[in-house]
């Protein structure tokens, strides 16, 4: 419990020219969690991941990964971190087995059983040359190469991008499998909310370089609520409702999407004397889209985790 988080950053910031890519990011990824890092294209996810791995230097702020300073990751730290990217360096003339042998020479710890298990799970033959692999098969090979050294922390940047549903499912299965050993942490970015819903226990949402959500997945889903009010006549004008994201007005009905909908908001709505007031549950995807939509005021869901750590960053 008192172990340091797998990833911890404070005020992490990166500018490209005068444009912020990531602005004042505070984030703790607990050990053993499966943590999904979400946000629209260009919101700063990839820059964050590259800073974590020391591939991009932060303009400001600090961070640690498995307890090591990200500005200066020693080789022994890199051996404990698995990083899955598309640009995995593979030689087309090698076959699957040779790729494994080549990669294993760089790692003091290499579990051939895991390598064979993963490539088998993707139905790869050991004798197929890399240049003859399909995209999904390549992803399987890369995953095998990344998992065989048994990393304590696995970082993946949009791992299912461009994969067909079967390959994508195999990848998700491998992620679940990885959590068998306790204390293994997975940090991944994704746009596939169906995958996120299956595997993640925590999520963070970046929006235009700023962290707006960091909480258990279920907390986020419950924080975004839709409320439907029915009126016998035309709906009255809407007073200021705290946390209102979106309001849709139709004949005789008001449909509101709110964040952190609570007693105060409900009282304000009841005061409109609707004939009926009903809360409608939202799917994760609907919650995500309402939350990041352009309408509505900015709000934040930064729930404290088990360790009552201070995740400041209120607007």
């Amino acid at each position: 419990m008192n172990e340091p988080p797998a990833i911890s950053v404070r005020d992490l910031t990166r500018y490209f020219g005068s444009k912020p890519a990531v602005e004042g990011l505070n984030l703790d990824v607990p050990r053993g969690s499966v943590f999904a890092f979400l946000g629209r294209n260009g919101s700063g996810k990839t820059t964050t991941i590259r800073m974590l791995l020391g591939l991009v230097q932060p303009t400001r702020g600090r961070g640690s990964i498995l307890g090591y300073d990200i500005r200066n990751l020693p080789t022994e730290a890199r051996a404990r971190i698995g990083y899955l990217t598309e640009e995995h360096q593979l030689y087309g003339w090698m076959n699957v087995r040779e790729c494994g042998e080549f990669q294993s020479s760089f790692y003091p710890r290499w579990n051939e059983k895991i390598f064979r298990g993963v490539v088998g799970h993707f139905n790869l033959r050991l004798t197929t040359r890399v240049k003859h692999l399909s995209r999904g098969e390549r992803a399987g090979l890369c995953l095998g190469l990344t998992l065989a050294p048994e990393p304590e922390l696995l970082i993946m940047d949009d791992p299912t991008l461009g994969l067909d549903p079967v390959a994508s499912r195999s990848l998700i299965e491998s992620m679940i499998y990885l959590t068998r050993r306790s204390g293994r942490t997975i940090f991944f970015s994704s746009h596939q909310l169906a995958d996120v819903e299956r595997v993640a226990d925590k999520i963070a949402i970046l929006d235009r370089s700023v962290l707006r959500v960091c909480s258990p997945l279920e907390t986020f889903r419950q924080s975004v609520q839709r409320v439907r009010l029915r009126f016998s006549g035309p709906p009255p004008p809407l007073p200021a409702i705290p946390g209102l994201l979106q309001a849709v007005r139709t004949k005789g009905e008001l449909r509101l999407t709110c964040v952190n909908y609570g007693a105060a908001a409900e009282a304000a709505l009841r005061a409109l004397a609707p004939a009926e007031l009903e809360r409608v549950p939202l799917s994760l995807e609907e919650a995500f889209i309402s939350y990041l939509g352009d309408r509505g005021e900015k709000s934040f869901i930064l729930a404290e985790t088990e360790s009552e750590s201070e995740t400041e960053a209120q607007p």
Partner: protein
Amino acid sequence: MCSSTVKLDITISTGSKVPIYKQITDQIWLAVASGKLAVGDQLPSVRVLAEELVVNPNTIAHAYADLTRDGLIESRAGRGVFIVHKRQVFTPEEAWRRLEPLLDAAIGEAMALNFSHDELKEAFEKKLGQWKAAMKGKPSDE
């Protein structure tokens, strides 16, 4: 009492308004209510079910914790998770409250399909009859 775990026929739909842990608890409740699961049946471990359904183990643990709290299952140290005596866990008011949205959903969909009042009534009676027949001879609680 059977010692091997039963195969659970659980379907997960992502993108649903119903959270995954709730989909699991709902389907286990239904399996017990319809006699597919009986008292003494052993459920798969959290780990096994997580890998089978391809969901985070914490989600399964959440579902099992809810079922334990509601008195449907019990975890026996070193042996596994079992269906135990099914207590009446809901107050009558709560049970009615839970029934209502189910009826609303079914009737709403049926109306959209243009069924008449009488046709629906008839279909409902017929279904009840089928369930009654299917559950006959199944071991009830105990």
